[in-house]
């Protein structure tokens, strides 16, 4: 009997936001912590919600919803902060956090998940593509576009 072909699986995290779900490689995430009080950063962009201390580093926290122009969750304080490794080409201390509405869930992608068509994707910036995982639309953030917004110089 021929066993089903099993390809390499991509370990990912499903990150629930308010009104959409992101999917990111697990390797991009350093840690997930409970939400906490942030230090506001005066004159920052509306999507930069503040900064907090983590492993001796100062980590800025964003609202992805605000970054892409969606309404923000009423109470991000009840959710989680997903801490991402620095974006490519950035300094090794430039971790950043993102509010999530709940604990991210692991997903092992098998490369067989259908890719969302353009008409299925929301008309938002910072979205590279979408996958339909178990019938649910999960969006892949466009890290290059995020990097341009984070570090415009």
């Amino acid at each position, binding site marked *: 009997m021929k066993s089903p072909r099993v390809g390499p699986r991509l370990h990912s995290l499903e990150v629930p936001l308010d009104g959409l779900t992101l999917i990111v490689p697990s390797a991009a995430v350093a840690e997930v912590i409970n939400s906490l009080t942030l230090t506001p*950063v005066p*004159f920052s962009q509306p999507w*930069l919600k503040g900064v907090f*201390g983590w492993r*001796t580093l*100062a980590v800025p926290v*964003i609202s992805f919803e605000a970054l892409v122009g969606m309404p923000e969750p009423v109470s991000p304080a009840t959710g989680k902060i997903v801490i991402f490794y620095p974006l490519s080409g950035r300094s090794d201390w430039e971790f950043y956090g993102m509010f999530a509405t709940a604990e991210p869930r692991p997903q092992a992608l098998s490369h067989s998940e259908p890719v969302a068509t353009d008409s299925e994707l929301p008309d938002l910036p910072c979205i590279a593509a979408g996958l339909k995982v178990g019938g649910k639309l999960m969006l892949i953030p466009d890290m290059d576009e995020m990097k341009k917004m*984070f*570090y415009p*110089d």
Partner: protein
Amino acid sequence: MTDSNQYMRLQLGDTSFLLPSSSGFTIEQRENLITNKSPEGNVAAWRVVQNTRLPAYCLDASLRATRQHLWHRAVFLDTVPQAVGLAVDEVQLLPRAETTISPFTPLGIPPTRLGHLFSGAWVTGHRAMLVFDPKALAAYLQSLGEE
């Protein structure tokens, strides 16, 4: 005498920020300054040096100019073309060994022509106290007007 690793804690409203002592500054008591008695404008007081009036501004915790009257001192930053002051509720020179500053770059578009207002943070546990970039702070204060 201070060294480049020392920081001053400046209290603005209910929030504190740090300023590197290496930036060059002068602290003046309020009684040595000329208070702006007009309710108009952003200047809280002036320091007069050789017939030149150097403005000092009072900022709230979100760094907006305010005309509150509870400040006691002003820290004048040595900058070109002339020094500019920040009125503070409290100023404290922190011991060198007490502060370890982590680099920090705020995300997004810088708010001043000289970049972001902050270049670091003092992290203690989950708390982060922001460290001013002196040149950007001076540029921001100078943008608040002379009156």
